């Protein structure tokens, strides 16, 4: 009985190990690829694979072909560590992940410990969407690089925009009841107080994460508070159901959100989201750049997923630039080259700040509209650019004291 299990393990391990050819460099995506959260991980995997083709056609990473490996973690931190070990044993030295600060927290700790305990076999962690500010502040790590603006930077950009908008006098905050939701609420209160002391916070609600089916009671509360605008960091079903309930009850206040354009939201909201749901993101749905528009169309045709994660393209481009600069795909060299690296993207110049490994980039406020030239998720709806917030207005100081290996 036990023997057959050994052969099973051995067989499966062999498959992982023989997969690597000589002249490739592998990047593992550790994200939910099966189960109820697969809708968050699958588009990222497809995006990476799609962009890897472009990178490889342009000479690859320091001359080597880039290969994307998807590893399923079911958004479970413990399972992520098992998958990380699998990646490391398969000779993979670069991992990327985005969904869930719990997973990111586990990976930062594990990568840090692995690199300390296994010099010469370093692993680099490229974070594309876990936005807990602490990862580039008190918990910053030399081996962690973040390619998304953190939650505080997004709020900084958003509040700058709201501060300009004199019509907004009363703001309602509604967030998920866990560390991220609390961080969003706290940042909103602090920054609004500083930038527009006259704005009144008329409500500050927390609801349990992914448990609320019917948001109408919250909408009644917002309605009776007389709010001019709602700020929410909700993601997944929590943002869809929230805005949907608002539309049904004729609540016309705009919703300023972090994740209004994540997959599935546009499809479900339809006309209920038009002119109601705003988002703060590094990109928007207009695709003025022709080359980007072509990529969006091609990617949707090929994979059935939208070109949502501009930051994944940025991540791969910066990875390539750093590796080419270092002339090597050794993580020690690449990490060194990545510090302070700048890249010209379709939205402007972005910089990987050396102090805390937090990318510095311009952000955009956009609003959902109908009859767009490039529709999202096969519909005619997409997010139309409303305002651009420059890099200098997004950036925030860091408390990171980076411990660099000798």
């Amino acid at each position, binding site marked *: 009985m036990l023997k057959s299990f050994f052969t099973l393990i051995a067989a499966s391990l062999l498959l992982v190990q023989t997969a690597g050819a000589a002249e490739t460099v592998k990047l593992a995506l550790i994200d939910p690829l099966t189960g109820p959260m*697969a*809708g968050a991980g699958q588009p990222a995997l497809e995006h990476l694979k799609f962009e890897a083709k472009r990178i490889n056609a342009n000479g690859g990473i320091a001359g080597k072909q880039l290969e994307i490996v998807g590893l399923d973690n079911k958004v479970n931190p413990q399972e992520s560590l098992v998958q990380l070990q699998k990646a490391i044993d398969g000779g993979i030295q670069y991992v990327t992940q985005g969904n869930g600060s719990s997973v990111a927290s586990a990976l930062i700790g594990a990568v840090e410990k692995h690199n300390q305990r296994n010099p010469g076999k370093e692993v680099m962690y490229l974070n594309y969407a876990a936005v807990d500010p602490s990862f580039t502040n008190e918990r910053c790590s030399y081996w962690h690089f973040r390619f998304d603006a953190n939650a505080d930077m997004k709020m900084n950009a958003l509040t700058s925009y709201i501060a300009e908008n004199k019509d907004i006098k009363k703001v309602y905050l509604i967030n998920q009841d866990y560390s991220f939701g609390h961080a969003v609420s706290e940042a909103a209160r602090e920054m609004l107080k500083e930038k527009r002391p006259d704005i009144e916070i008329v409500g500050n609600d927390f609801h349990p994460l992914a*448990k609320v089916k*019917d948001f109408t009671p919250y909408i009644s*509360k917002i*309605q009776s508070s007389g709010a001019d605008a709602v700020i929410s960091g909700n993601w997944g079903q929590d943002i869809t159901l929230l805005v949907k309930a608002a539309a049904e009850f*004729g609540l016309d206040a705009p919703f300023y959100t972090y994740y209004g354009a994540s997959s599935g939201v546009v*499809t479900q909201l339809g006309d209920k989201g038009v002119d109601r749901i705003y988002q703060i993101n590094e990109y928007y749905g207009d695709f003025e750049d022709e080359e980007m528009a072509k990529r969006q169309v091609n990617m949707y045709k090929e994979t059935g997923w939208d070109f949502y994660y501009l930051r994944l393209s940025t991540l791969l481009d910066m990875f390539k630039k750093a590796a080419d600069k270092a002339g090597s795909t050794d993580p020690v060299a690449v990490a060194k080259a990545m510090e302070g690296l700048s890249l010209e993207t379709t939205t402007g110049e972005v910089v990987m700040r050396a102090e805390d490994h937090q990318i510095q980039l311009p952000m955009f406020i956009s609003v959902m509209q109908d009859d767009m030239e490039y529709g999202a998720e096969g519909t005619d709806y997409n997010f139309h650019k409303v305002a651009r917030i420059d890099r200098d207005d997004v950036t925030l100081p860091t408390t990171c004291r980076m411990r660099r290996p000798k």
Partner: protein
Amino acid sequence: MLELVIFSTLNGVLYGLLLFMLSSGLTLIFSMMGVLNFAHASFYMLGAYFAYTLGMYTGFWPALILAPLLVGALGSLVERFGLRRVHANGHVAELLFTFGLAYVIDELVQMVWGTVAVAYREPSYMREPLFTLFGTDYSIFRGVVILISILMFIALWYLLKKTRVGMMIRAALTHGEMVGHLGHNVPRLFMGVFGFGCALAALAGVIGGPLLATEPGMAATLGPIVFVVVVVGGMGSLQGAFYASLLIGLLQTFFVAIDASLADVFNALGANLDPYGEVGRISLATLAPMTPFILLVLILIFRPRGLMGELEP
């Protein structure tokens, strides 16, 4: 304040009615066959997805009838070829079977309809406001949902109390063997009741889909709450399930509406809780979605037979 009370009541009743539609089928199945069907919410999800797909060809109203019929047939098949087989191995085996079935249905739904939510929406004419009160709209669709739920409740009551089949079902609830001895085909009755219960869940799905969301996680999040309704209402009691559904619907809605923290509540009762401490600052709104489970544990400890039930589970 008045508008908050009125809308909270309306919302609470609506949510309660939806819960009842879901749990009435489960109560029937549970009290007759002793099976706490873990996959019940999965049939609710199937109802929504079927109605979405059918609705593209037939429109909303035919789908409202067809989807529950299809799901009901599917439920009967599950009973005939799955549950009946495991029945010999006892209740634990039956429960495990439905537990596994929920897994499989959830995965199959993802396989067929994808991992992202689908655009299942009510017909556009139902999005118009039915009435506007204090500047807040109440859509026609919500009115329709309430109407359908009430019609269903009346139909169910009529079926159970006034028809021959209903009499048989009620008899089989308490004296299953005797019904069998009288020459009725009890296994077929079980099959019918299971299918009927699933069809009720699917009906809830058809109207719950556009109201909430049609996505692969919709079963997993609502599933446990349905159990709570059945247990709190009391085993085998449709009336109990009705009261429990409304109670939970209203409790959740009003907990959200009341702007108070735990410290406010306890300090009003004479306790001395730090309003900025980790316990004291938890707001009632935060606790709202947990109320069903708190209620469940309290009921099971202090009144195990539930609100209206005659037997302990």
